[in-house]
Structures are given as structure tokens and as C-alpha cells.
């Protein structure tokens, strides 16, 4: 019973003021990066660096904050990007961020500097599963319900998005998490009151 309660708590994250501000900043960053932070690979295809935001927010605060940050962030990206509203993709991205942000649930505690090879492997698997579930199942369902979109085009876009996201999440995400974990580790031998004030 104790174990279960803990998982529920980890899934929800701790909603104090710091989490709220971090989620808000993460959402804004997600929006801006989605519009301007793409790395052009070919014409019209880019690796979106916005995917780093759920990694960081998820690593530090848990899956639900990552979910909210990516969902709100994608709506903001649609607002400033000017390609129209794509609520179906926003929901897909939010679900994917939830899966990516599961880090604290399987024991990778970035805030205390715990991020080992075992966690990296689970993280990579979570990224694949999250992408497949969100873009292979959830986005197509909502595309059909909301806009009556064509499934084949959606699947092709989803496939491209999955490959791109996975590349960013693993190639850039793991080093970023490692760096963050090391930063927090070097601080963690200090007493709480000294480390948090400055």
C-alpha cells in the first residue's frame, strides 16, 4: 500500500510554487523552441529541440508537470508559429512528454544526482514507447475525431516526428540529464539551508 501511494505521488509531482513557475517557463520555452529552435535537416524537415523541455521538467519535477508543460507549450507554439491550431498534435505531444517525464518513477532522481546506465536504458525505452503510443495511436484518433484528417498522411507525419523526436530525446537528452545530475550531485553534500538559498 505504501509503495502504491508513493508511485501515485511521483506521477503527480509536487505542486509547489517552484514547480508551477518551472512548468510555466518550460511551456514558454517549448513554444519558442518549437518555432525558432528547429535544426533544419532537409527542406521542411527539422529536428525540434523543444523536446528537451519535457526531459528537463520531467527529470526535475515528474511526469505530470512535463505533461502540462508540453501541452500548454504546444498550444503556445501554434499561437506564435502561425500554422493554425493542431489540438490533436498538442495532446499527442503532451502524452509523449508524460512518458518521457516518467524518470523519477523508475528511480532516476536527477535532483539527488542519481542517473545511471540502468536508468538511461529505461529512459530510452520509455522514449520509444511514448512516441509510438502518442503519435501512433493517440494523435491519429484525435485527428480523425477533430478534423476528419487522412490517416495515411498522419501516419507518415507521425513516423517522421517519432524518428526526429527520438533522435533529439536520446542523443541530446541523455547527456543533458547526465550533466544536470552531476551538477546536483556536487551540491548534494551541502546542508539544505545553504544550498537552496543561493
Amino acid at each position, binding site marked *: 500500500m505504501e509503495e502504491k501511494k508513493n508511485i501515485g505521488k511521483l506521477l503527480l509531482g509536487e*505542486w*509547489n*510554487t*517552484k514547480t*508551477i*513557475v*518551472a*512548468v*510555466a*517557463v*518550460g*511551456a*514558454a*520555452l517549448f*513554444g*519558442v*523552441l518549437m518555432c*525558432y*529552435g528547429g*535544426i*533544419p*535537416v532537409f527542406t*521542411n524537415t527539422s529536428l525540434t*529541440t523543444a523536446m*528537451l523541455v519535457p526531459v*528537463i521538467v520531467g527529470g526535475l519535477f515528474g511526469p505530470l508537470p512535463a505533461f*502540462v508543460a508540453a501541452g*500548454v*507549450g504546444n498550444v*503556445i507554439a*501554434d*499561437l*506564435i*508559429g*502561425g*500554422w*493554425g*491550431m493542431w*489540438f490533436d498534435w498538442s495532446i499527442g505531444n503532451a502524452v509523449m512528454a508524460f512518458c518521457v517525464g516518467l524518470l523519477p518513477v523508475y528511480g532516476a532522481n536527477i535532483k539527488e544526482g542519481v542517473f545511471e546506465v540502468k536508468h538511461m536504458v529505461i529512459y530510452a525505452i520509455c522514449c520509444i514507447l511514448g512516441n509510438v503510443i502518442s503519435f501512433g495511436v493517440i494523435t491519429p484518433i484525435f485527428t*480523425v475525431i*477533430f*478534423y*476528419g*484528417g*487522412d*490517416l*495515411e*498522411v498522419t*501516419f*507518415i507525419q507521425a513516423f517522421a516526428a517519432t524518428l526526429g523526436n527520438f533522435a533529439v530525446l536520446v542523443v*541530446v537528452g541523455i547527456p543533458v540529464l547526465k550533466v544536470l545530475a552531476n551538477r546536483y550531485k556536487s551540491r548534494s553534500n551541502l546542508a539544505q539551508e545553504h544550498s537552496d538559498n543561493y
Partner: protein
Amino acid sequence: MNNRFLINFTPGSTMMHKLTGGTKVLLFVLFTIAIIATFDVRVIAVLSILPIAAIISMKPNYKPIRFMIGFMVLVVGIIGSLMLLLVSPNAGLTNVGGSTVIWRLGENFFVTKETLWYIFAMFVKRLASFMVVIAFVLATTPSEFASGLAFLHVPYKVCTIVSLAYRTIPDIARRYTDIKNSMQMRGVELSKKASLGKRLKATAALLVPLVVSSFGKVEVIANAMDLRGFGRLKKRTWYSEHELTKADKVLRKLCILFTIGIVAYIVWFRVINPWPVTYWSPFIAREDIVKVGRFETLSILKWFGK
């Protein structure tokens, strides 16, 4: 980059601006649901009259709006349609219910009247929902947005997230341009002249300071909010929520009627008596519609079938 932002931070003076946040959010939600619920171009056309009138009545700066709509026509309209025509030229069969070839070029590439109508109708639908968004964004400041969400009983912590995120965008965008300019001044090549590997590295060099400085501010903002007692009580009042104007009262009553209308429409036209295929079209009578399952035409499934 700055004139691309539609987001409005100062309260305006027209009637739409003076509505309370609650009414604006309510109208936005209702219109979005209505446009998502209908697949009939006639209904969408009627529905989009009010948002367009609202946009005109606010006398906005038309430059970013024109840019956005142009961009949307390019990305969704032209590139999206070409992709659809290339990938599944027979999409009109599943979604509109017919296949009248008007131009054929080989076995796998042809243009049907229904597919063209399907592309047009889907584009109208997306454009209409975008109009609603533009009207809403032009009329609403971040704090009004938050108070409006609170009016719809969204937990106030979520409201704060939305308004804070909304408010932080220009800061982050400015920081991004600053960092990019200073990087380029130091000789970091970010344009297409450099090779892919170099560009990846350069983007990483640009992202690290942006992410670090953005998240570095979190603690400062959070401390400032804590000092002012944020999150101590279960409820919150909103500075920007004011007394209802006359237009508010009228619009809120209309909102009730509108909600009833949407529910009736969904129940009658989507559940009890639905159109046999997704999109209505003017040139196919109801009796002539060919009904094809959505999964029967998927080429991906055909590969698995064999």
C-alpha cells in the same frame, strides 16, 4: 521577429476588449467545440462570421495576422494538400463518399473531385478554428486569460501556469535573439552554409545558455511569488476580473443558447442521424454516397495483410 507576435499585453478600448475574461474564455471554448463538432462547410461558414467580425471590430495591427494566415495557407494549404495528393489521392472516397477522376497521371497518381473538396473543407475547418484563436488572442491579456479560466473552475494553479507562460514568451524570444546574435558575432555559423554536424553543435551551443538562463530565473520568480503568499489559501481572487458590462450580460445569455444549440446539433446530426461519411459535399446526393471503411483503404495495413 517582434512584430510576429499577436499576443496582447495592454487592455484595449473596444467593446471586445472590455469584456470580462470569463466571457472571452467561454466564447472561445464554445466556438472551438462547435467548429470541431461540425464537418459541414455551410455550418462552419456561418460559425466563422462572428470571430471575423470580432477581429475587424478590434481594429488590430493587420501585419502579423496577414503574415500568419499567409504562412498557414502555404504550410497547411499548399504543402499539406500536395502531400495528401501524393500519399493518398483517393482520400475523397473515405471522407466525402465518391471517386470522380478528373485528371489521371499513371496508376497511383490521380486527382478526384471529391479529394479536392475534402482538402478544401478540411482547410476551411482549420482556418475557421484558427480565426477563433486569433480573435481570442487579440482580445485577451494574460491575466484576463487566467481569470477567465478560473471562472470556468480550472484550478488556479493551472491558471497561473497559463498566464505566466503566456507572459514569459517575449522574454524568452528576446533572450534567444540576443544569444543568437552574440554567437554569430563570435563567428558561429548557424545558416545553411555550414555542414549538418557543425550546425548541430552550434545549435547546442546556443541552446545551453538559453535553457540554463531561463530555468535559472525560476527560483527568483518562485521566491517572489512565495513572498507574496502564493498558494497559501485554497482560493484566489483575480485583479483583472471586473464587473460585468452590458455586452457581457447579453453574451453570457447567448452562450447558454449557443451551448444548447451545440448539444442539440451533436445529438441530432452526429449521433441520431449522422451523415454517412465524414464531410458533407454539395455535389453528391445522400443516396449516392459510397461508404468505405476508414481502414480498408490504408496501404499500411495492406502490407501487413500480405
